[in-house]
């Protein structure tokens, strides 16, 4: 195990440069350091101008997603010693515009997230006097996996369809839509379906499956999307044969 390692960090200084460059830093490599520790060491001791996002440093906030040796990772959960003897290449999350250094513009994802209405939609709200919505453990199991998403966008960085077509709504947005569609308390499937059944909704996905591979919370967005394709297709066929609706 090396006790030092080289970090090759992507830099982009918009006020000075018109393209991204790389700066190399030789840092210590204690066995319990993650890539984020390395970046913080650089910022604290070597180059205070390095800009990057992070927060909880324990894999629940989704802020510190970056490309580490070409793979999308949460830098707070990626150990430097796994990359010995190095060098370790750290770049901003793929498929997103770069604002500065390792910071990307998340606006596209945030707009898509809001668009799929990630909240309980009721046709008629239950008054408080009637008490809370009851849900069995089995009903919770139906959507629980998809509620684990921390919006880290590693899946967008891994998805080639999103890379080729930024209009594609993307893995996390669809998985989160499913989290609510499958929630027994929710009545908003029809509203979400309008957005998701567009060509750039679920139908843009070709089941590459990389999103599920890189997800740090095991959400399985690829599975969520394929399941939704089946649901949406069956609904379309039903609507064709019974235009006034069955139930």
């Amino acid at each position: 195990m090396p006790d030092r390692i080289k970090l090759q960090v992507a830099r982009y200084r918009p006020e000075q440069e018109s393209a991204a460059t790389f700066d190399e830093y030789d840092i210590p490599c204690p066995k319990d350091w993650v890539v984020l520790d390395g970046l913080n060491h650089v910022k604290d001791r070597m180059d205070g101008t390095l800009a990057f996002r992070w927060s909880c440093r324990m894999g629940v906030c989704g802020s510190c997603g970056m490309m580490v040796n070409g793979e999308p990772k949460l830098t707070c959960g990626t150990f430097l010693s796994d990359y010995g003897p190095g060098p370790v290449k750290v770049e901003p999350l793929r498929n997103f515009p770069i604002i500065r250094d390792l910071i990307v513009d998340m606006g596209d994802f945030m707009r898509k997230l809001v668009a799929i209405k990630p909240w309980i939609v009721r046709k008629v709200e239950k008054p408080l006097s009637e008490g809370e919505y009851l849900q069995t453990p089995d009903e919770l199991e139906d959507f629980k996996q998809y509620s684990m998403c921390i919006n880290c966008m590693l899946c967008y960085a891994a998805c080639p369809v999103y890379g080729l077509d930024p209009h594609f709504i993307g893995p996390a947005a669809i998985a989160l839509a499913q989290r609510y569609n499958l929630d027994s308390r929710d009545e908003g499937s029809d509203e979400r379906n309008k957005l998701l059944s567009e060509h750039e909704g679920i139908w843009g996905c070709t089941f590459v499956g990389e999103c599920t591979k890189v997800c740090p919370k095991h959400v399985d967005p690829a599975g969520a999307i394929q399941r939704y394709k089946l649901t949406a297709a069956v609904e379309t066929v039903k609507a064709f044969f019974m235009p006034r609706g069955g139930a």
Partner: protein
Amino acid sequence: MAVRQHSEPYLWLLFSAGGVLSAMLLPVMVLLFGIAIPLGWIPVPTYEHMLGVLGNPITRLVLFGLCFLSLFHWAHRFRHTLHDALGIKGGFMAALCYGAAAVGSVVAAYLLWQVG
């Protein structure tokens, strides 16, 4: 755009059904008619036997279903691969692919009708 929105679910269903059917039936058929029989591992079935098998109306119906669904499976997947791998998109390529599948299905129907 509206045409594409409404047709995607149906095309995806055809693609899925075609994927399952082609996965279940085609490998053994290639093994028999593409490898084992040409290489002589199995004697060539007699003409009378082939006529008997192919003449059966159920066989012909299943074969038509197989051809139709497999061709649309190819069309849907190939059109998406042209986009993913080579950046070729647009309605023209899609029309070519699904059109070829439709033509192939008509040919299949015609031939399987005739073999009875």
